[in-house]
Every structure is written in C-alpha cells, then in structure tokens.
C-alpha cells in the first residue's frame, strides 16, 4: 500500500500500481509526479492535491465511476491520450480552484453528467475531437480562458455559461446543435469575446444572447438557421463572414450601440414595410385652425 509523502517527489509505479476500490492518496504541499501506463483509478477512489505543483500523465488513464479529483490552488497539468472521464450517477467531478491548469488530450471524452467547474484563474482546455456529451455543463467564472479544438462538438442539452472575462472559442467545424429543451444556449455577460470558426453551424432553436461588451463573431459559411435568434444589447460588435446566411424567421435585434455587419453574399431576407400601418388609410380635413366666421 502506498502512503503519503509530504516532503518530496513521489514517483508511483507504472503498470504494477493497482489502486483498487476505496483507496485514498492524500498529497500535501510539495512537488509530485504521478505517471503510469494504463494507470487505473477505480471506483470510490479519491485524490486530493493541496497547494503545490503536480503533473498527472498517462496513456489510457481511466478515471472511473465515483471518482473525484479536487485540486486546490497551484499549478497542475493533466494530460493523456485517450483519457477517459466516465459517467457516474452522482456525476464525476473535477473542481479546479484558483491557479493555472492545463487539461489536454486527444479524444478526451466528457460523458453524460460530467461537470467541470473552473473558478478564477487561467485555464487552457483543448483537444481534438473533444466531445461534450448530453447534460454536460461547463461553467467558467471570471478569468481568462481558451477553449479550442477541431471538430469540437457541443451536443444535446449542452450549456455553456461564460461570465465576465476574456474568452476565445474557436474551432473548425464547431457544431452547436439543437435541443428541444429551450434550444442551445450561449450566454455571454459583459466582457471581451471572440467566437470564430469555419463552417460554424448554429441550428434550430439555438440562441445567442450577448450582453454589453465587445464581441467579434466571424466565420466563413456561417449558417444561422430557421428560428435562430441573435440578441445584441448595447455595445460594440463586429459580425462578419463570407456567404453568411440568415435564413427564414431569423431575427437580429440590435439595440443602441455600434455595429458592423459585413459579408459577401450576405442574404437579409425581405421583412417588408409595415403594410398593416396603412390599412384603411384616409385623409380627414383639419378644421381646427380655419373655422368660418359667424355673425354673433
């Protein structure tokens, strides 16, 4: 059985490290390295990392049902190929408090019920084919974040809340798909944002609400589909794209502010004059000022 080592590096064994059910490792302040191929952290396992500098890496690192990682203030790096963060009825939880983190992985699978809470700090979340599945929630509080990935898929019921801060969301073929539960939602509070992507698809029922701030939405072949709604409150915005298509029933509501909408072949479909305004229109003589004289 492995114990704690508060005063130095703790190189764990590789393939032989079998950390079974209800096993607990507590690492206090210090510098540690946990490495292993096929490192398995199984059911009921708990890993608490207090302030310090850590590096967790492994190929095929599996964090299974009921697993919890709590990372307090510090600098961490979690990397792995085919790192699997599996579903639990309670929901697998990673809580990252203030600090600097780097979560990377190819084919990182964030499955149903998974939750990541990132508090104030600087984070980088990236991955190719990063899949954020049903019921997934990503809450980013104030800070500076970068979310990027090729083929980043935000699926059914996904919710992304971004509070004040500076964000960059980019990806090729970034897909924001439909959900019957109120539609896909991105809510961006005051701040500075950049949403970019080639072939960015905002599908049926999708909604983007941008509060006061500075934004830039760009994309080639950006498609805003039927019933899509874009609400821009006071601020400065720049929407641009080649072949940007605003389809039937699309609505752009622009309140006071400074906007630039540009695009080649941007199609703004006829909304018509308010023809109902003139229904039954006729003239009546105004006799208020010029009455005929009468003898009193």
């Amino acid at each position, binding site marked *: 059985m492995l114990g704690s080592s508060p005063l130095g590096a703790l190189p764990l064994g590789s393939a032989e490290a079998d950390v079974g059910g209800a096993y607990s490792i507590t690492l206090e302040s210090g510098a540690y390295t946990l490495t292993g191929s096929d490192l398995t952290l199984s059911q009921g396992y708990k890993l608490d990392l207090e302030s310090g500098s850590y590096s967790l890496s492994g190929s095929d690192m599996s964090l299974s049902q009921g697993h919890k990682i709590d990372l307090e203030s510090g600098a961490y790096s979690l990397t792995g190929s085919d790192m699997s963060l599996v579903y639990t009825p309670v929901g697998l939880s990673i809580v990252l408090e203030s600090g600097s983190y780097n979560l990377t992985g190819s084919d990182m699978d964030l499955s149903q019920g998974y939750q990541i809470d990132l508090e104030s700090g600087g984070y980088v979340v990236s991955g190719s084919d990063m899949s954020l599945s049903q019921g997934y929630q990503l809450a980013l509080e104030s800070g500076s974040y970068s979310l990027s990935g090729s083929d980043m898929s935000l699926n059914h019921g996904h919710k992304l809340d971004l509070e004040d801060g500076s964000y960059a969301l980019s990806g090729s073929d970034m897909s924001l798909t439909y959900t019957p539960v109120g539609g896909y939602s991105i809510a961006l509070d005051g701040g500075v944002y950049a949403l970019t992507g080639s072939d960015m698809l905002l599908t049926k029922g999708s909604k983007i609400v941008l509060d006061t701030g500075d934004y830039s939405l760009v994309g080639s072949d950006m498609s805003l589909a039927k019933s899509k709604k874009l609400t821009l409150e006071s601020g400065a915005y720049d929407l641009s794209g080649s072949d940007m298509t605003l389809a039937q029933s699309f609505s752009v509501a622009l309140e006071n502010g400074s906007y630039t909408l540009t695009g080649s072949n941007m199609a703004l479909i006829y909304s018509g004059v308010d023809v109902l*305004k003139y229904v039954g229109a006729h*003239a*009546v003589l105004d006799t208020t000022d010029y009455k005929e004289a009468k003898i009193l």
Partner: protein
Amino acid sequence: MKIERKRGDTYDIIISVVDGNGDYIVLTSETFQLSVSSEECPTAAPDIFTVAGTIADAATGKVTFAVDGTTVAGTYYYDIELTDTASKIRTIAKDTYLVVQDITKS
C-alpha cells in the same frame, strides 16, 4: 370629403392621415400629392394644379398643402395620393373641389 374654398384664399389645406380605426398614422418619409382637375374622370394630367404636401406633424399624421388662390370659381375634382416608404401609392381622399367666387378684389 368635399373641399370648399373662396377664390383668392391662400391658407393651407391641412389634412390628417388616419387609419381604418380613425387613429393617426405616424408618418415617417411618406410623400403626398394633391391633384385638382376640371374633369371627374380625366385621361390626362390634372389641368388645374398639382401640389406636393409637407408633413407638418408626423405624430398626428398632419400634412399641409400650399394653395395660391388663383383658381377661378367653379366645381372641380381632386384626389390626394400617399406614397409610402416602399414607394407604393395609395389614394387617401377623392371628392369635389369647389371654389366659390369671392367679393374682395385686390
């Protein structure tokens, strides 16, 4: 809506544009034209006069037409056309335009 004036009167003709419910139509950039003809069914341009209207109070749909008072006494015919912001034309008034002989000559 008959219009009756005395020959030589130069006060503006003032109309209010209302909708089918009698509510004022708030005007934006519509244009108006008053045309007066000696014929009830003219086939050519109006032979008496035409004058463009001026929006005097957009909120109450008020439009004024300046008339010079030189039209000789007689019974004429008029209409008022509204051209909306989509360049569509609507005739919002059509009736007789009566000029009664005045007494004062100056």
